[in-house]
């Protein structure tokens, strides 16, 4: 970077800059200032604020009578929270696994010089442009037992076809998985397809010359080189899973009962409609903990990777 600059420009600037501290030297900082303030206050400040609230007995309004870890204790003794948390485990695990599998598979299939690839890709990806509320509304209609898929299959002649997951407390969580996979798997496909297109073509040619089959080439050479894409997809998907709120609101509204609640919905309900601000804050902090547990190792490996370059 400084090879050329050293010859042409750096002489005058380096000796000249400290002398004249012009407005131009301050401009970058002035321009960044609002963002710095907003980030410090509205991200870090609010995080601390919520953390503080989670240690208070706040109910309808924030109050600052500290109660130690009481809210966290209440939280983990709350059946609804435990259901929400285990739902997140089931939902997140399946959602991520299925999206990754579908995404990789479809990307590889589409990478076989497919005719009309553009059109197919467009179809696979369009759900990502839609709001989760619309997705939820559509799937609520498809999955409802009285008029939806169940009735269609019965009318087609499958008399005993039963598909009532939406109103079955044990199965409703899988409805969320179906709708979420429908929405996000195309995105994972796009990520991997972009990755596949970036793989060095010579490497693949060399493998073919050595007699490797297409399958082996993918398994041994191409897919391993996509590890970074894999991790990015993993982070983005787990992030979507932990933040999932709108899909539940639109598809099941947490029901039947609270069988399909996720932590984000728990937090909203307790903070805004049940006037349990302290408890809601504690649940938000646990969600933050989940995100950090995924994010910190990822960022760490990213940054370390950069240094080595």
């Amino acid at each position, binding site marked *: 970077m400084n090879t050329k600059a050293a010859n042409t*420009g750096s002489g005058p600037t380096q000796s000249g800059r400290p002398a004249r501290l012009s407005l*131009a030297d301050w401009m970058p900082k002035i*321009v960044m200032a609002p963002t710095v303030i907003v*980030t410090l206050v509205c991200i870090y400040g609010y995080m601390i604020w919520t953390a503080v609230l989670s240690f208070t007995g706040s109910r309808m309004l*924030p109050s600052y009578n500290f109660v130690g870890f009481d809210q966290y204790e209440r939280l983990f003794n709350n059946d609804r929270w435990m259901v929400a948390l285990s739902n997140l485990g089931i939902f997140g695990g399946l959602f991520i696994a299925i999206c990754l599998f579908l995404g990789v598979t479809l990307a590889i299939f589409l990478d076989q010089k497919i005719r009309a690839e553009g059109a197919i890709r467009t179809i696979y990806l*369009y759900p990502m*442009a839609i709001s989760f509320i619309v997705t939820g509304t559509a799937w609520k*209609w498809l999955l409802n037992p009285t008029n939806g898929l169940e009735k269609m299959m019965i009318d087609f002649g499958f008399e005993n076809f039963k598909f009532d997951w939406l109103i079955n407390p044990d199965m409703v969580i899988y409805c969320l998985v179906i709708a979420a996979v429908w929405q996000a798997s195309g995105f994972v496909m796009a990520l991997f397809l972009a990755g596949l297109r970036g793989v060095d073509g010579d490497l693949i040619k060399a493998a073919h010359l050595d007699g490797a089959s297409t399958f082996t080439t993918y398994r041994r050479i191409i897919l391993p080189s996509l590890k970074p894409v894999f991790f990015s997809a993993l982070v983005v998907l787990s992030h979507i899973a932990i933040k999932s709120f*709108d899909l539940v609101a639109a598809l099941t509204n947490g029901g039947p009962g609270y069988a399909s609640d996720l932590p984000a919905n728990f937090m*909203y309900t307790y903070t805004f409609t049940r006037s349990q601000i302290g408890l809601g804050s504690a649940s938000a902090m646990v969600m933050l903990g989940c995100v950090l547990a995924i994010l910190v190792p990822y960022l760490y490996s990213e940054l370390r990777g950069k240094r080595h370059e």
Partner: protein
Amino acid sequence: MSNKAVGRKTSGLDKALRVALYTVLIVVAAFYLMPFIVMLLTSLKDVEEIRTGTLLSLPASLNFDSWSKAWSSACTGGSCGGISPYFMNSFQIVLPAVAISTLVGALNGYVISLWKFRGSDFFFAAMLVGCFIPFQVILLPMAQTLGWLGIANTTSGLVFVHVVYGIAFTTLFFRNFYQSIPGELVKAARLDGAGFFTIFYRIILPVSTPIIVVTVIWQFTQIWNDFLFGVAFSGFDTQPVTVALNNLVNTSFGGKEYNVDMAAAIIAALPTLAVYVFAGKYFVRGLTAGAVKG
């Protein structure tokens, strides 16, 4: 057609594989398309047809009654004016929020990549965390702040919130784009006496069109599709369309009108779908921008 010797050896298996491949791809495409087709079909039927037919049965005639009802007279919780007022609210929120967050992101990216100062890189890293925090952590403090600022339950309040939590993304986009601009360019311009804004306006902006398009599309989609901030920070008549749609679908006065629900859902999805259809390339680029790096 090509090489006969090679062709004979592989063609049988290859052909079968190709057919299987296309079959799978088409079946999967049907899976992705089906919900939208069902929505469209349902929105064109009347209540009787819905009750007697199946999801995929065709409507007897093209009947747009439920569309006009969804637009102008369906009941969404409190009022019965359809979703059109909320559709307009969404535009009132989205347009300023997209414009402001894109402009701020461009300036931030410009500073972070070409006017580095002590701590700017550290700050950028700290800011990136803003892309990832679950917003539940900031909901309540933000609700209080909006109250103090006197913009609780207003569209201005929502614009403010979307700008605040959008600039981390927009800054990231512009920063990554401007990283490839050589620093010597700025240095040379400075020696010629050009100032901070002159360089931005004359040199940087003219080459920024692609990233501006990507950022605008990304922000438009994100903010239009937002539900969490909309439901937490809006008042009865300032709700964005996603919140109104959810209220409409979950309103249980009288019989359930699925055709109206579906029409409303399609209307709510149209702006972002249109963006996707007309500018899909840039939409995908935005989606993959953060995730796939060289």
